[in-house]
């Protein structure tokens, strides 16, 4: 085959490739070509791998809760009443959980802003907003500690017994929120480290702010899980 027919064949293949919608072409290209598949850095790819695995763990816990709740013949406690808070002389149902939800969403917002400043390589503002996110995460943890204390000592709900209804309530509650709280705790420590590194100029020296973005992925995932716990456990 001489040069001219070869380039003609290439052009023809090119045209055939163009028949596919651009997104599918991109997908087939990534799947077929013999080289690394994901066009992201290893750090980011591995964080995603971890998060997908973690999604399975949280998903399984939620499904375990679903099974426990379907199979119990005892009445399920009303979460609005259980998590009511006595403020301004009246019982406001679920108010603590609502505040915790808003707090976690806010921390996700400050994290997104931190990542935005990381793209702009703004050392001070990146460190500041990551630290602020960790601080708001710490507030969430304090409120959760308060919630647990009130539930265990005032309302006498423990994993094996709950006086206001099905015993599976306690088991599901401590399992779900406990594992989520563990993730928030780990996240606060993680973010504190990232904030300190960003502030000290570690990323500025290496010229790579991607670790802020990767920490952001983890933190947003923790917020994402809370969305589902809020819906299926507290609101259901």
């Amino acid at each position, binding site marked *: 085959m001489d040069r001219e027919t070869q380039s003609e064949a*290439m052009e023809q293949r*090119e045209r055939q490739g163009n028949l596919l919608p*651009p*997104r599918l*072409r*991109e*997908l087939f*290209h*990534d*799947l077929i*070509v013999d080289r690394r*598949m*994901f*066009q*992201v850095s290893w750090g980011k*790819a591995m964080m*995603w791998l971890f*998060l*997908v695995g973690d999604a*399975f763990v949280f*998903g*399984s816990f939620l*499904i375990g809760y*679903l*099974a426990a709740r*379907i*199979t*119990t*013949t*005892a009445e399920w406690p009303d979460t*609005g009443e259980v998590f009511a808070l006595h403020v301004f002389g009246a019982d406001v*149902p*679920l108010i603590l959980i*609502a505040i915790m*939800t*808003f707090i976690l*969403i*806010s921390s*996700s*917002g400050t994290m*997104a*802003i931190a990542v*935005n400043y990381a*793209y702009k390589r703004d050392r001070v503002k990146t460190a500041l907003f990551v630290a602020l996110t960790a601080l708001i995460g710490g507030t969430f943890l304090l409120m959760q500690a308060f919630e647990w204390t009130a539930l265990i000592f005032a309302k006498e709900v423990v994993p094996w017994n709950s006086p206001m209804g*099905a*015993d*599976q309530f306690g088991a599901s509650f401590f399992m779900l929120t406990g594992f989520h709280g563990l993730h928030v705790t780990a996240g606060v420590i993680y973010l504190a480290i990232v904030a300190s590194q960003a502030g000290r100029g570690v990323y500025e020296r290496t010229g790579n702010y991607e670790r802020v*973005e990767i920490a*952001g*992925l983890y933190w*947003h*995932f923790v*917020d*994402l899980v809370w*969305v*589902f716990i*809020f*819906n299926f456990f507290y*609101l*259901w």
Partner: protein
Amino acid sequence: MAQESAPSTHVEHHEHPPINTYLRVWGLLFVLSAILYFSDIAEMNVMLKRFLATAFSLVKAGTIMAYFMHVKFERLSLILAILLPPLLLLALAGILAAEGQYIFGLRELFAEGP
């Protein structure tokens, strides 16, 4: 040659939405959560409440992933690798829900207690 015909394969390729986009997403999440909270307080029909709550939660989860976690700006291969495997959980949920109904029936028939 295949590499050259592919749409932008540069590793460092990123699209950064402006900071306003994040603030808008933040606002949306706040509003949706507030509506959910008040729909729980106002004692509306339980099935309607659950349907609303689940729909809103999916919207919330979607916006968090798309904008905060940048999934919208990733390539399709990564998006599918992230989103498809967890769908298996739906099968597990379906199986356990069906089995759960059966166990509930057995307990009502034969057992007392939880």
